[in-house]
């Protein structure tokens, strides 16, 4: 008897792409979902989290990460399909020198069908991505009135260009999110986009702190802590940021997160 279950690679199953009809339905549903998040007390972090999760669900990719620029014109990871350090690290390297930052500076999508072939162009990014089993990446800029405010990045575990229909779906979803950021700007009647970006990035501070509190309380990983946080928010129909802030001021007890309704 060998413990071969421990060697099973944790991978998303659906290697066979979803059928065209169900894919169109999923995509339409994703847009409706995004539109739904735009109602009154909509939160940008929730919206962006929904966006990356829908990308992973609908498109033939393994992971997705969304980055927005901060005041110092640096890209920061705001939402990703996994909170595990490996993906976060890849995205951060990517923001320094990789397709992500190139899509940001050029304003054009960057398709990398074979990451291994770009080891001289982006050595650190290639090494980190390949070490985690990622072979291809597609980075698309998020443009708002001619200004690039961030990038949406799709990572695949097989060599090959992202299918054009996936790429165009990703661009459409990124555009929808960009419009949502503009919408939030109007709702808040502020004058600069930077403030909205900062709001999204600052929301992350509470979320990271809440993850730490939950990781400590339940002896779980940061990724599992994030799942706990999100599950609780969904069960109670609360925004992620509200739950995170509630944990920070102890109006929501970390120890009761799994037992409270």
């Amino acid at each position, binding site marked *: 008897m060998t413990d071969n279950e421990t060697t099973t690679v944790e991978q998303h199953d659906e290697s066979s792409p979803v059928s065209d009809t169900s894919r169109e339905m999923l995509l339409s549903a994703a847009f409706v979902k995004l539109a739904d998040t735009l109602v009154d007390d909509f939160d940008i972090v929730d919206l962006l989290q929904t966006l990356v999760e829908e990308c992973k669900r609908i498109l033939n990719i393994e992971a997705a990460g969304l980055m927005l620029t*901060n005041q110092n014109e*640096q*890209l*920061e*990871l705001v939402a990703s399909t996994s909170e595990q350090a490996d993906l*976060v*690290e890849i995205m*951060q390297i990517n*923001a320094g020198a990789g397709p992500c930052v190139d899509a940001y500076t050029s304003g054009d999508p960057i398709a990398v069908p074979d990451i291994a072939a770009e080891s001289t162009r982006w050595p650190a990014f290639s090494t980190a991505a390949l070490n985690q089993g990622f072979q291809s990446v597609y980075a698309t800029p998020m443009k708002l009135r001619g200004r690039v405010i961030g990038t949406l990045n799709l990572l695949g575990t097989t060599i090959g260009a992202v299918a054009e229909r996936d790429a165009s779906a990703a661009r459409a979803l990124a555009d929808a999110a960009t419009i949502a950021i503009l919408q939030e700007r109007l709702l808040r009647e502020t004058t600069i986009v930077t403030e909205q970006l900062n709001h999204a990035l600052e929301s*992350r*501070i509470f979320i*990271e*702190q*809440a*993850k*730490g*509190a*939950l*990781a*400590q*309380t339940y002896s779980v990983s*940061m990724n599992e802590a994030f799942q706990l946080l999100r599950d609780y928010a969904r069960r109670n129909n609360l925004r992620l940021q509200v739950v995170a802030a509630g944990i*920070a001021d102890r109006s929501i007890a*970390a120890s009761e997160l799994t037992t409270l309704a």
Partner: protein
Amino acid sequence: MPETRREVQQATGMIFAQLDVSATDAFYRLRMHAFSTGRSIQSVAAGVIARTLDFRELE
């Protein structure tokens, strides 16, 4: 560095839960510990996350 900032925030949350203090106090203690041991905040945060450093044991 954004990545290390995330870790500092996560470690702050862990200390917040370990010591039952406010997040502001937790961050203050993290910074004080780094200062008093001559380490960087990032390195102390990494130790907290890796669970090799528990602030309850420092009290």
